């Protein structure tokens, strides 16, 4: 961490709390799956960015370190897009059952 003024940690905490409550509200609201997905993923990424930028001090580090930190996100997005055509080819959604073992309840 280069020398810098300390960010307002309680402010970051407050926004993380607000976003968490907003996420739960969205999860309960009767929205379409797509709308829910976009809102929830958007809010989760905002929360993750707040943690990375302020708690992990990425905002005050060199840009290159930020680029390195972002690579996993890009690679995972790439992985999802690589998986999509395969999933789109599933004609009938099937329930994948693992071999059932005797259940002891």
């Amino acid at each position: 961490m280069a020398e810098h003024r300390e960010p307002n940690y309680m402010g970051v905490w407050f926004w993380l709390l607000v976003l968490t409550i907003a996420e739960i509200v969205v999860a309960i609201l009767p929205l379409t799956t797509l709308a829910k997905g976009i809102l929830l993923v958007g809010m989760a990424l905002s929360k993750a960015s707040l943690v990375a930028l302020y708690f992990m001090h990425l905002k005050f580090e060199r840009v290159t370190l930020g680029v390195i930190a972002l690579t996993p996100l890009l690679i995972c997005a790439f992985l999802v897009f690589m998986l999509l055509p395969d999933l789109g080819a599933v004609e009938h959604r099937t329930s994948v059952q693992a071999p059932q073992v005797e259940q002891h309840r």
Partner: protein
Amino acid sequence: MSETATARLEPFESPLTPESWGKLGMWIFLVGDAMTFGTLLAAYGAVRFASADWPHPADVLGINMTAFMTFLLICSSVTMVKGLSAARHDDLAGFRRFIGLTILGGAIFLGLQAYEWTHLIHSGLTLSGNPWGASLFGTTFFIITGFHGMHVLGGVGYLLCILALGWNGKFNGHNYHPVEIAGLYWHFVDLVWIMVFTFVYLL
């Protein structure tokens, strides 16, 4: 002459994190770890998308307690930065208090997770099947939350070591990087939970 040669071989500063090599090491570890979690979550998405009878997570898992667990981890991240700040300002009492609170937050999180798992296992959710639908629901749930839980457990142990090392004032305004590096790990565990909470519990 020989001093110059040594300086050339062992640069005093790393280009990315001039103040500490350890920090760069931790960042590289976290990037790799993030890819592991990313792969697990992407696989979860793929399996869920291809399944016709995936249970609605909120009905099975319940989100009240998990929301509290999220709140707990967010608070423990704040106490972690406060602990680092105390170390940087030579405030030994503050360092002990805040790092102690961070460890406590992690330990309560683990306790709640153990309680949640026990409850779910008793109601029939196992690695190989469950009464609500797709059997992979339980498999992915236990693998993802379990992998994260092991990270929390590791973090609690890591922070206990940092607390023990710094109990008598080893960390101060001139030597606080070990605390900062432990903090990076702890915040990463919080960050991953934010994702797990969204994808596994809310969506």
